[in-house]
């Protein structure tokens, strides 16, 4: 077994796509290793020591995840990832309570798996309200209040957006939901381990967590399901009745252990890591702003995780820029939709014009990002943005003071 000694070899691009996925922390792999090898038992096996040993691993991990979000370990269910958690939370609640209530509220900037689940429920006869967000990407609480009816069963609002990193006002949303006796689900895939989350203080009833966004493994996630007052769900995967019947299937012990360890490390290092990333974020932004004009940060900068920047470089095509900066692994939006050339629906929801949305890059910083990498990235970006702008007739016209929007393009 080769030990992980460093995350990046020198010939590899600088990884700045921490919202797509994070490299696994070597400490997490170390915690997982025994469960791959000699502690390989099935945690459902009650008849021998291999099974008990595996169960100790999963239950310790459950407690670690619970602690990260201020929950009781009985309230944490392991799933195959945040997509499954989001599907289970929204569909599970909708289907369980459908005889009494049939209305769900969410926002237009949610992750695709939330939006698609909601659309599917609409086809099944549920009513879904997709709330707009303000120009800064944040939800307007008055708009939320006005949308709640006596038929509303669930409000699903993500904690942190995956493209622009903005943090929604969870405490206020939680309070509004509790006052109106509506369940509050939050997709915390991008938030858990990065900002403090306490399900009690925030009145959260359901929370989705992903392993691979917090330096843990892929293929594992968790769903927090409140017990008091109790939230009930119709399960999506049935079978052996694992996870108290909420989610059947043999628990992948090493993955559970990895998620638990990742959660614990995040919790311990959250404060210092946030400070470090804030400095790196500022360093990058200052570097770009001091050397480039016409760049716009999409989404609120203050209510934002420090590990994210989403920047539009006016007059530069995002895809061309990405092709140029081969030494940087960044993305133009969410990874799931990154193969499509459609402008980001999140940026469009913020009112970013299509041209500007096309010029955006999502830059994700994280645990293994160094100052040196930031400086190199700034140099690369500045160089390529300048180069592309020099080739752009639009940029030239803008420099000459022509208002591009006033131009009437000839039909072709």
């Amino acid at each position, binding site marked *: *077994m*080769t030990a992980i000694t460093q995350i990046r070899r020198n010939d*590899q*691009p600088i990884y700045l*796509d921490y919202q*797509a*996925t*994070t*490299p*696994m922390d070597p400490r997490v792999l170390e915690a997982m290793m025994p469960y*791959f090898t*000699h502690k*390989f*038992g*099935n945690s*459902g*096996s*009650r*008849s*021998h*020591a*291999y*099974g008990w040993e595996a169960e100790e691993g999963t239950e310790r991990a459950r407690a670690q995840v619970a602690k990260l979000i201020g929950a009781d370990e009985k309230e944490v269910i392991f*799933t*195959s*990832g*945040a*997509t*499954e958690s*989001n*599907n289970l939370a929204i569909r599970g609640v909708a289907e369980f309570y459908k005889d009494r209530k049939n209305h769900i509220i969410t926002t237009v900037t949610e992750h*695709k*798996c939330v939006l*698609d689940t909601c659309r*599917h429920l609409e086809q099944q006869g549920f009513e879904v309200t997709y709330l707009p967000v303000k120009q800064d990407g944040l939800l307007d609480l008055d708009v939320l209040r006005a949308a709640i009816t006596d038929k509303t069963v669930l409000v699903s609002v993500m904690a942190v957006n995956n493209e622009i990193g903005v943090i929604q006002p969870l405490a206020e949303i939680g309070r509004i939901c509790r006052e109106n006796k509506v369940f509050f689900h939050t997709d915390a895939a991008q938030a858990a381990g990065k900002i403090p989350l306490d399900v009690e203080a925030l009145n959260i009833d359901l929370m989705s967590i*992903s392993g691979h966004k917090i330096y843990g*493994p*892929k*293929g*594992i996630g968790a769903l927090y399901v409140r017990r008091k007052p109790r939230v009930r769900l119709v399960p*999506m*995967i*049935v*079978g*052996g*009745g*694992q996870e108290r019947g909420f989610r059947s*299937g*043999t*628990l*992948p*012990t*090493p*993955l559970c252990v990895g998620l638990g360890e990742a959660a614990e490390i995040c919790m311990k290092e959250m404060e210092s890591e946030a400070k470090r990333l804030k400095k790196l974020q500022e360093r990058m932004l200052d570097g770009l702003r001091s050397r480039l004009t016409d760049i716009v940060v999409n989404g609120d900068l203050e209510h934002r995780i420090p590990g994210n920047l989403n920047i539009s470089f006016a007059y530069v095509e995002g895809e061309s820029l990405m092709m140029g900066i*081969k030494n940087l692994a960044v*993305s133009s939006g969410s*990874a*799931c*939709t*990154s193969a499509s050339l459609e402008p980001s629906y999140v940026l469009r929801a913020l009112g970013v014009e299509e041209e500007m949305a096309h010029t955006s890059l999502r830059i994700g910083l994280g645990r293994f990002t160094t100052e040196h990498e930031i400086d190199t990235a700034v140099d690369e970006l500045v160089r390529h943005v300048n180069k592309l702008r020099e080739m752009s007739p639009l940029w030239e016209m803008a420099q000459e003071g022509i208002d591009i929007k006033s131009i009437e393009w000839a039909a072709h």
Partner: protein
Amino acid sequence: MSAAAYLDHNATSPLRPAALDAMVDALQAGGNPSSVHGVGRRARAIVDTARREVAALVGARPAETIFTSGGTEANNLALSGAGRRRVLVSAIEHDSVRRAVPRAEILPVDGDGVLDLVALERALASSAEPALVSVMLANNETGVLQPIADVVRLARAAGALVHCDAVQGAGKVPLDFRDLGVDYLSLSAHKFGGPTGVGALVVRSAAPLGPDRRGGGQESNRRAGTENVAGIAGFGAAAAQAIRGLDVSMLRSRLEFSLVQIAPRARVFGAGVPRISNTTCISMPGVPAETQVMALDLAGVCISAGAACSSGKVQRSPVLEAMGVPAAEAACATRISLGWNSVAADIERLITAWQDLYTRVSQSDISHTESRVRAA
């Protein structure tokens, strides 16, 4: 711990070293396969390679192979995704099939635990509504192989789709998806030395499949969620090795012969019909299964009293019940299952421990124990 004889491979099999290596490599490489940049493309390549390896294990095309979080999800996905309201399942299916369609019509098995084909034919003929038939390849408790080719023939004639849960069969008997002729085939990595948390559903390209979960368009829009890259890599590596098959029939013959010699009234369930070579379901007359399992565990031998997912609960095995095994006898049945790293020493250790227990109990009051079992 490592000195113990682990004979519970049908619950989970230890990870093969090749699978672990592949996983560690994938974990170190990182990346989201949906990302366009180089790191993402490398992760995509790992997934693609593994998909070819898993498809090869069962003679399917890579494009027909959808990765899931395991056998349970694959079974659930097939049963709901096929979109058939009428579902026929055998009485010995795993809970992940039985409970996925509580309304399903149950097909009986005979005393050896083999599906009753006459009953299947009759059931198919009883309604014009097109059905989905779900029959496992090999039973998880007895190892008895099911007549899938006959199931497919009857189902086709009636316009029915066929799902086969091959979780316990794959990697143990040669499998060819095309020859088998089924529409859906479920696989689990950790039953043949791959990691837990990953499985696959193989779907014939012409068969219908509605998605069960929604989100990013991974797995050709058939299964949303960031791919478990490392798990998939381990699955592929394990499949590449398991393709050589598993033949531990010599070890099992030695085991069954010895145990029946020790306890002449012991019964091996399904002994008269084809089984996968690694599984023995056997009763030690008069000794409750829980007692056996605990005594053997103390002697450093790991076996189980039934399926792992329900092994914490004290309940009768639905498989043995369906086979018509009397309750008192079923209560004394345990499952011994071998795997890729089983060796003769494990079997000898089991035989010794079994003999010790049997002698001990026989010398005390076997009739007393038997009456207790009957009362339970």
